C-alpha cells in the first residue's frame, strides 16, 4: 500500500464524512438525520482501518471497534429519543422541536 493509496482512502473517508454532514444539514426528519450520522461515522471507520493497514498497526482496527461501539450506543440512544420525541411532540420533524432559541 503506497502513500497515495492511503491518501485516496482518506479522501474517501472524508467524502463519507462530508456526505454525512450534508445529510444532517439538509434533512429534517430525525430518522434521516440519524442515518446521516451513521454515514458520517463510517468515514472515520474507513480512515482508521486504512491507516492501520498502511502502518501495519492493529490499533487502527482497535479504534474501529471503538467507533463501532459508539455507533451502536448512539443509535440506541438516538432511536430512543426519536420514539420519545414522537410521543411527546407528535412529530418526527426536527424543525418542530425548536422551542428554545435566542
Amino acid at each position, binding site marked *: 500500500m503506497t502513500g497515495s493509496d492511503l491518501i485516496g482512502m482518506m479522501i*474517501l473517508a472524508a467524502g463519507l464524512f462530508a456526505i454525512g454532514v450534508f445529510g444532517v444539514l439538509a434533512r429534517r426528519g430525525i430518522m434521516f438525520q440519524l442515518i446521516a450520522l451513521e454515514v458520517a461515522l463510517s468515514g472515520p471507520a474507513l480512515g482508521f482501518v486504512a491507516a492501520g493497514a498502511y502502518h501495519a498497526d492493529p490499533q487502527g482496527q482497535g479504534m474501529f471497534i471503538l467507533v463501532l461501539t459508539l455507533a451502536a450506543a448512539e443509535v440506541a440512544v438516538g432511536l430512543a429519543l426519536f420514539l420519545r420525541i414522537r410521543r411527546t411532540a407528535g412529530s418526527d420533524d426536527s424543525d418542530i422541536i425548536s422551542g428554545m432559541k435566542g
Partner: protein
Amino acid sequence: MSLLLAIYAGAFALVSGAIAVTRPNAVHALLYLVVLLLALAVAFFALGAAYAAVLLIMIYAGAIVVLFVFVVMTMPVSPESVTRERASLRGAWPLPLLLSVLILAPFVFGEFGVAGTSAAAPVSAQEVGRLLFGPWALAIELASLLLLAGLIGVRHIGRSDRTPRSRP
C-alpha cells in the same frame, strides 16, 4: 489489485452514502445504508482487515441497521413525511452542499507529502485480539462503560409514560 478493489468499493460506498442521505423514504435510505456498509466491508477485506470487515457486517449491518429497521417498522413512514422530506431537500440543499464541498475540498486538492510504501504484511486478527486484551484492556473496559451509559440512557428515555410524575 486488492487496493484497486478497496478504492472501488470505497467509491461505491460513497455513492451509496450519497443516495442514502437523499432518499425521502426512510426504508430506502436504510437499504442504501446497508449497501454502504457492505461496500465498506468489502473495502476492509481488500485492505486486509478481515476482522474489522466481519465485525462491520455483524454489528453494523446486522445489529444497528436492524435496530433502525425495527423502529421504522413500529413507526410506519407516513406519506406526509415523504413529501416533507422531498420538499425540504429541494429547498435546502445548496448551503449544505456548499459546506460539504468546502469540507471535502482540502482533501481533494491538498498536497499531501506522504511518500513511501508500507509494510506488506496485513494486520491479522490475532494481532488485533492481542492488542485488545493486552495494552488496550482499559479501553475495552471503558467501552463497556460507554455502552453502560447508553444502556442507562435508553432505559430512562425509553421508559413508559405511565409512571406517575407528580412526585418530586
